[in-house]
C-alpha cells in the first residue's frame, strides 16, 4: 500500500482528473463540431506554457496557466484572422496556426534553456506522469495528514482546481452553454451572448489542456478532449446523460489507461510502458467498444 501511495496514487489521480477536465469540456467541442479546435488549442498553448515557465523559472502553475490561456486566445484570434484574410477554410487555418505555434514552443524550449531544467520535448509530447511521486506517503493515514498532503506534487492541486472550475462553470451555465451550442443566432436574439460564452469555452479548453499537459502530454490531450465525449455520443441522445457518460468514460480512460501501464508490462516481460500511450490506446478501445455496443445508432448516423 505504501508503494502504491508513493509511486502510483498521484499519477493515477492526475491521469483521471486530466481526462475528466478535458473530457467534460470536450462535450461542448464535439457537440458544436469543433473538436479540431481543441486539438489546435492544445498545441497552440505550448509557447505560452514555455514563456510562463521561463518567466517564473519554475513549474509554478499560475504563470504557466496564464501564459497558456493568453496563447490560446491569441491562437483563436489568429485562426480567425488567417481564415478571413487568406480565405482559407477553418481546418486549414487551424492547421497553419497551431503547427506554427507548437513549433514556436519547441524552439522556445531550446532558447530559454528550459530543456536543461525539467521541461523537455519528451515531456511536452508524452507527459511525465511517472515523475509525479509522493515520497512523504507512508500509509492511508497520509491522505488525511496535512503535512504529507502539503508535499503532494503541485500538478495534482492544479488539476484539482481546474477540474473544479470546469465543473463549476458547466453547472452554473448549464442551460446557457447548451443553448449557445445548439443555436447561437437564436441565443443572440434573446440576449444570451454567444460570443462571450464561446470565448469562455475556449478559455476552459485552454485551462483543461494545460492541466492535462503534465498527465498525457500535448499530443495526446486531443484523446482526452475527444474520446470521452465521442464514447458518450455513441451511447446516448440525452444531453445530461451525454455529460455523465463522458465523465465515466474519462475515469475509465485515465485510471484504466494508467493501470494498464503499470500492470501490463510484467506480463509481457517489458520494463515499463509510457502511461500517456496506454491512456490514449485505452481511449481508442473505449470508442471502438462504444461503436460496437451501439451499432444501430452509428449506422443511423452514417445514413443520416
Amino acid at each position, binding site marked *: 500500500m505504501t508503494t502504491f501511495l508513493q509511486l502510483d496514487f498521484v499519477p493515477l489521480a492526475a491521469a483521471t482528473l486530466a481526462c475528466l477536465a478535458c473530457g467534460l469540456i470536450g462535450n461542448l467541442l464535439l*457537440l458544436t*463540431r469543433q473538436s479540431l479546435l481543441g486539438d489546435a488549442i492544445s498545441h497552440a498553448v505550448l509557447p505560452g506554457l514555455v514563456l510562463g515557465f521561463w518567466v517564473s523559472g519554475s513549474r509554478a502553475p499560475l504563470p504557466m496557466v496564464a501564459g497558456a490561456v493568453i496563447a490560446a486566445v491569441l491562437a483563436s484570434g489568429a485562426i480567425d484572422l488567417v481564415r478571413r484574410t487568406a480565405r482559407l477554410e477553418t481546418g486549414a487555418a487551424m492547421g497553419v496556426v497551431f503547427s506554427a505555434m507548437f513549433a514556436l514552443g519547441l524552439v522556445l524550449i531550446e532558447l530559454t534553456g528550459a530543456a536543461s531544467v525539467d521541461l523537455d520535448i519528451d515531456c511536452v509530447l508524452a507527459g511525465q506522469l511517472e515523475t509525479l511521486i509522493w515520497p512523504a506517503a507512508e500509509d492511508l493515514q497520509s491522505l488525511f495528514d496535512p503535512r504529507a498532503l502539503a508535499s503532494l506534487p503541485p500538478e495534482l492541486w492544479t488539476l484539482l482546481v481546474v477540474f473544479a472550475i470546469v465543473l463549476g462553470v458547466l453547472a*452554473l*451555465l*448549464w*442551460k*446557457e452553454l*447548451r*443553448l449557445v*451550442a*445548439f*443555436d447561437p*443566432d*437564436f441565443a*443572440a*436574439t*434573446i*440576449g*444570451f451572448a454567444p460570443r462571450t460564452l464561446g470565448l469562455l469555452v475556449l478559455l476552459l479548453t485552454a485551462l483543461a489542456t494545460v492541466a492535462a499537459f503534465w498527465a498525457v502530454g500535448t499530443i495526446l490531450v486531443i484523446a482526452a478532449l475527444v474520446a470521452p465525449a465521442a464514447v458518450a*455520443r455513441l451511447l*446516448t*441522445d*440525452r*444531453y445530461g*446523460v*451525454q455529460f455523465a457518460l463522458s465523465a465515466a468514460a474519462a475515469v475509465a480512460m485515465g485510471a484504466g489507461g494508467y493501470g494498464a501501464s503499470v500492470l501490463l508490462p510484467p506480463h509481457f516481460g517489458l520494463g515499463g510502458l509510457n502511461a500517456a500511450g496506454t491512456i490514449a490506446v485505452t481511449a481508442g478501445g473505449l470508442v471502438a467498444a462504444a461503436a460496437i455496443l451501439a451499432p444501430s445508432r452509428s449506422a443511423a*448516423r452514417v445514413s*443520416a
Partner: protein
Amino acid sequence: MRAPDPVPLPPEPALAVHGLSVAYGGTTVLRDVSWEVRPGTLAAVIGPNGAGKSTFLKAVLGLIPRLSGEVRLFGRPLAEARRRVAYLPQRASVDWDFPLTALQVAAQGRYPHVGWFRPLPRHERDRALAALAEVGLADLADRRIGALSGGQQQRVFLARALALEAELMLMDEPFAGVDAASEAAILAVLRRLARDGRTVIAVHHDLATAPATFSEVLLLNGRVIAAGPMATTFTAEALAETYGAPIPLAAAA
C-alpha cells in the same frame, strides 16, 4: 389651466426600416431598404435565392452588422425592444442531431423569463409544453429532435418562438420543407397571432400560397422592388422585375 389634450398619435409601426444597407466581405447584399409594417399584420418577404431575405431579418435583429440605415421596433432601437421580438431561424441553420428533446428546444423560448444561471423552473417548463401543444406536438415533447420530421422540427422552432410571447415575430422560411399537416398547423398559428394583434414577418418562397397567407408583402432583390398590401403589390409585373424573368402567376396559383 389645463393643457390641451394631445392629438392621438398613430400607432408606432411594429417594424420601421429606413435606408438599410448590408455588405458581406465587400459585396453589397442589401442596398437602401426602407419598409414599414403596422402591428397586427402578416407580412411576407419574397424574392429569389440570394436576394438578401435572410440577411434582411438578421440585420434587423442585429445578428449581422449594418453598413448604414436605421431600424426601429415599435418606435425604439433594437436594444430597448429585444424582449418584444421573437426570431425563428431557418431550420437548416442548426444541427438537428444535437442531443435535445422537442421540449428542451421549446423551453429555450422561456430563457429570457428565467434569466441567467438558474435552471428552468417547473411552471416555465409547463409554459413551454403549452407552446408545443399549440403547434400540435404535445405528444412528442420528449422525442429527440433528430427523430422528428422536417415539418415537426419547423413546428418545434415555432413553439420556441411562441414561448417567447413576443409581439413581433421574424420568421425565416417557416414553411420550408414541411408536409401538409405541418403547413396547416403553422398556418393556424399565424392566423391566431394576427387575430391577437401580433405582427409576423416571414421570409416566404412559395409564390402560390403567399397571397392567401399574408396581407402585406416586401418584394426584395438586393433592393426593394415593391412593398405594400398584397392585393396591389403582388402583381405579375412586380414579380417579373423581382425575379428577372416573367413568373406565370396563374400556373403557380
